[in-house]
């Protein structure tokens, strides 16, 4: 059934559902018999499942080379009502396959890494039973992410969109009974909940966009929507603008942009492989993918492009300033991720889709590398801490705090070099991967939206600075905590996947080199690149096969300068234990803001969370219970009926009816009220009585009028 209904005769196109089925099979195996397989078995099954998806993705590339127009593979109907037709249909084109490659490729490496990482993690946290659960969730994530990138309609994309949100929730809250330092707490589960709810706000926007699409375009299938956009844009341009803005709300949620980015830093509560896979390399880029996929809509509205690009650029700079003020090794990377996502969103927002996708790919390589290396550092610290004399074991020890680290290039040399490569790539130093992709974005920004260029260029400066700061703090100087001094290098199962990622971080730029433009040509089959029209400054006209030497030079100088400054502050005279951050001395209040994330969380808490909690409590207690359930019920309904019955009993009944037809209704009523008194005290008796009287009255009236 799964392979019969295809629309092309492509080589391996029919296999595409297996990018989802393979991880699902993996998770089912581990769910059902995982407890008997042992850690190695569980990890192997999960990695194999993810690896199979990778193989399927490669097969899709082979098929696409033969049939660059791609294919659509329908598996089953989903929701068909009237003219609404949503199917489980996979879409194979160069864009979706690119995403499949990134997700399953990086995903598989991280699965392998996690075999080693989680082995130690569950032991440090004294809960070995949770090992299997981790890989089930990880496979669940891969499956959902594959649905997201391969769906042929906005609604199927949305299934994956929320599915990865679920996986993210489960994995952020993986250690749901503790905080990040392992103390019993609701902290981690709070982080998980925050992520899910914030993402739901984004999903709300997505849903509105999808509904508007259906009623305006008659479908949510990509092809059918795009076929009609030009026509709709001509008659109802507001539709295009609203759809793009609703989608942007979704993008802001999933890709952690202003104003919905607040969940991502907290998401670092998840185990480090999760941070690398979901919260850096893949899931958070879904928004970038969404805008790229929606290119035909976005390119129709200059306003939409302006808004998206600006949101991305502001986010990029804003998050970069916060990153420079963090002490937690993962928090720096988290804000860096938000910042880099800002670069990508800005890129796709202004129509530089290939540049955005290019950066998405290279970022997946080097940010996964950085996170996993950070995980290696954290475990190294844990190992060091574990070997300390017993007296130290009960102190509250934060293995991720850079103020505890220092000098770790000696204790963890492999990790150090890997981290260096990731840093250089992220900082955009020639010839590492980040240089090429970031440069493309900056050049496009300079041409299209100069304000975006300035914001991003400053953000790039900050990027190099905070990464330099991190390197000096973690790996140079002297150990500021005994754990760092005793840290131990990680095993090969963790470092080998990192080496692969390191190689990709060095060479990733080759994907879209000047003159060659492999990625541009590849994506061209799917995303029509619209060249920017209009005047550009003379210095931007220079082109070395698409690379502008001035833009490249400026950003390289900025990056080197930033690293030099970070050396002045943190490298020349390394931090001592207990010493306050030199930036704090220099910038006092500004640094205080950076350190505290500009108090955005607190502001949100005050403006939204507390208000909603108050409102809910007010509605539940005061309005619903005290007023409506108690007061209104007792004083209006019950007392009202009591008064009505008294009126009936005393005036109508005694005064009129009693005279006319003896006393039987009262007898009945009394008998009933005696009965009911046994059942209930107080008003219910008279209430029941009054209902009865009411029934009698109404029936009597009807019968009298019936003839």
């Amino acid at each position: 059934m799964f392979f019969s209904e295809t629309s092309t005769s492509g080589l391996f196109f029919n296999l595409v559902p297996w990018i989802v089925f393979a991880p699902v099979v993996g998770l089912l195996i581990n769910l059902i018999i995982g407890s008997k397989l042992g850690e190695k078995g569980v990890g192997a099954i999960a990695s194999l499942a993810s690896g199979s998806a990778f193989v399927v993705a490669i097969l899709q590339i082979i098929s696409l080379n033969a049939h660059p127009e791609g294919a659509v593979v329908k598996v089953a109907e989903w929701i068909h009502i009237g003219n609404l037709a949503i199917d489980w249909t996979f879409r194979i084109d160069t864009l979706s396959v690119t995403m499949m490659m990134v997700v399953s490729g990086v995903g598989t490496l991280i699965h392998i890494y996690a075999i080693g990482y989680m082995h130690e993690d569950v032991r440090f946290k004294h809960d070995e039973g949770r090992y299997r659960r981790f890989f089930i969730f990880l496979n669940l994530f891969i499956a959902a992410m594959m649905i997201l990138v391969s769906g042929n309609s906005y609604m199927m994309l949305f299934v994956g969109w929320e599915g990865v949100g679920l996986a993210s929730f489960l994995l952020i809250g993986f250690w749901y009974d503790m905080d990040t330092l392992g103390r019993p707490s609701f902290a981690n589960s709070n982080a998980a909940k925050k992520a899910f709810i914030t993402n739901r706000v984004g999903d709300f926007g997505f849903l509105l966009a999808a509904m508007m699409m259906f009623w305006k375009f008659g479908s949510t299938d990509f092809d059918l929507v795009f076929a009609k956009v030009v026509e709709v844009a001509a008659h109802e341009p507001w539709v295009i603008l609203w759809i793009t803005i609703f989608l942007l709300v979704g993008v802001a949620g999933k890709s952690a942009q202003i104003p919905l980015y607040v969940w991502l830093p907290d998401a670092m509560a998840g185990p480090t492989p999760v941070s690398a896979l979901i919260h850096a390399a893949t899931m958070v880029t879904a928004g970038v993918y969404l805008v790229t996929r929606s290119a035909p809509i976005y390119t129709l509205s200059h306003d939409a492009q302006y808004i998206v690009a600006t949101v991305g650029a502001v986010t990029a700079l804003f998050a970069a300033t916060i990153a420079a003020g963090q002490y937690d090794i993962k928090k720096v990377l988290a804000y860096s991720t938000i910042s880099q996502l800002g670069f990508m969103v800005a890129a796709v927002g202004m129509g530089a889709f290939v540049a955005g996708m290019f950066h998405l790919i290279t970022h997946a390589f080097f940010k996964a590398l950085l996170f996993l290396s950070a995980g290696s550092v954290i475990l190294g610290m844990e190992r060091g801490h574990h070997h300390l004399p017993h007296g130290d074991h009960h102190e509250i020890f934060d293995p991720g705090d850079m103020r505890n680290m220092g000098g770790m290039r000696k204790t963890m040399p492999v990790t150090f070099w890997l981290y260096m490569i990731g840093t250089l790539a992220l900082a955009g130093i020639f010839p590492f991967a980040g240089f090429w992709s970031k440069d493309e974005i900056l050049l496009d920004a300079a041409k299209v939206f100069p304000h975006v260029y300035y914001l991003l260029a400053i953000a790039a400066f900050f990027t190099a600075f905070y990464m330099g700061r991190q390197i000096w703090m973690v790996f140079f100087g002297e150990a500021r905590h005994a754990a760092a001094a005793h840290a131990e290098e990680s095993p090969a199962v963790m470092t080998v996947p990192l080496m692969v990622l390191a190689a990709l971080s060095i060479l990733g730029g080759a994907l879209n080199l000047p003159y060659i433009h492999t990625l541009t040509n590849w994506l061209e089959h799917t995303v029509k690149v619209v060249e920017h029209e209009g005047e550009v400054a003379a210095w931007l006209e220079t082109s070395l096969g698409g690379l502008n030497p001035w833009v490249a030079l400026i950003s390289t100088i900025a990056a080197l300068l930033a690293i030099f400054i970070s050396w002045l502050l943190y490298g020349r005279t390394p931090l001592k234990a207990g010493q306050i951050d030199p930036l704090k001395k220099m910038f006092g209040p500004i640094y205080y803001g950076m350190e505290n994330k500009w108090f955005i969380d607190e502001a949100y808490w005050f403006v939204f969370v507390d208000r909603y909690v108050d409102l809910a409590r007010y509605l539940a207690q005061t309005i619903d219970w005290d007023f409506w359930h108690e007061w209104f019920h007792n004083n209006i309904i019950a007392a009202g009926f009591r008064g009505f019955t008294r009126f009936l009993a005393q005036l109508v009944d005694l005064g009129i009816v009693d005279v006319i037809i003896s006393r039987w209704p009262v007898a009945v009523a009394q008998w009933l009220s005696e009965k009911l008194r046994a059942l209930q005290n107080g008003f219910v008796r008279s209430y029941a009585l009054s209902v009865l009287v009411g029934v009698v009255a109404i029936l009597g009236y009807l019968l009298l009028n019936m003839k």
Partner: protein
Amino acid sequence: MNFLLQPLTLVTFFPLLGVLALVFINGEQKNTIRWTALGTALVTFVISLWAFFFSGQFNPANGDLQLVAKYDWIMVAGWNIRYYIAADGLSVMLILLTTFLTPIAILSTWKAVEDRVKDFMMFFLMLEVGMLGVFVAQDLFLFYIFWEFTLVPMYFLIGIWGGPNRLYAAVKFFLYTMAGSILMLLAILWLGVNQGTFSVPDLVAKGGIPVDIQFWLFWAFTAAFAIKVPMWPLHSWLPDAHVEAPTAGSVILAGVLLKMGTYGFLRFNLPLFPEAAVAAAPTIATLAVIGILYGAAVSYSQKDVKKLVAYSSVSHLGFVMLGMFALNSQGIQGAILQMINHGLSTGALFLLVGMIYEQTHTREIKVYGGLWKITPVFGTLMLIVALSSMGLPGLNGFVGEFTILLGAFGSVAYGSYWYAMLSAIGVILAAIYILYMFQKMFLGPAGEITHHHEIKDLNLREIITLLPLLVFIFWIGLYPAPFFNLMAPAVEKLLIPFQAVLMAAH
């Protein structure tokens, strides 16, 4: 004999056989009683499956009433009251939901009900007869009898086997529902007397009720149904009834009894009073939207988990009402599916809450915590059901909610995007209260009860009780086509008169 062997008659009254059998069983033989009741309910379920899918007498591609049984009953003095039962795409899934949930609910009482088991089961099976009667009756008088009849067993189920405040809750349940029904009775009598028949298809075919009278009749029916649903602000009986009812009672109450209200709108208000329905649509939608948001916010603030689930029904049924009065295919099909979904998800939630309550005898959310670690199976099943309830795509709740929102968004009857846009906020609020519940009970460190009480994970019987619900939670979520196909022709038929009415109104 032919009369009794008609498929729908057989389905409807078969549980009475079980009641009869129970009469002859000694009240001390509790297990025999349980098995008899369960067996009866299961056979009823099988008969209902047979009637619709294997008897060859029901064709879902046909939107008309089928499996008809029609006999004159009270035909004096111009009263044309008939025994007239039939089913179509609007009711078939509700009938199946009833026969499906009843054995599950009975199975859940195995250990929970030890007191007067015989009486309990007899009431329970009688309740099933009443509910099935409501869904099959095509004669207004017959419908009214079944409608009122369901109150009696439910009243006793709450009043005898309920919680500490059961009498108050039972009486309130009874009287609130009665109060609404009286107005409906008035309207029924008016229709029967003035139109010369109580048969709904005849009344629909005849039509021609003046618009101003339609208006009164519409709201008279609405009084009964809106209390039953319950629509905001008529919900204040619901938390009492749910909190005090025994688990099985809550399952049936949420799963089926509330659907009698929404079904009533669908079966009577829409086809009988199309002009009034179109005119009332924005009003109903406004109440529905308030119910969605209000129910979700109030749920979030509950300290008692059963109350949280109870209030969530106000929100969920707000969605059903919103979809129904959108008066387009997406809205109505979504509404019908969401009735089923709510029965499955909320039924499962009540079952799960009951299972933990049996062990700890408390429903206070804050005394739990860390349950997932201690009871992994229970936690996992709760998670799935919770996600279904908050509308995660891939599970059943989403399909219903999305189609409802979609219908409301493009509804000509509403004529505004606002209803759908505001209701979509309910999707966020649902995540807030559901995740709050899940987090405080299942995540985090061990709470007071979890710490001091030895809590056992689900046993085999409990898993078997939940498993059928889970199958449908996934099935409807991933492949709802068979369910939509079952209702689509009937819904299209229902909508035919509205095209003209909507055209005229706008």
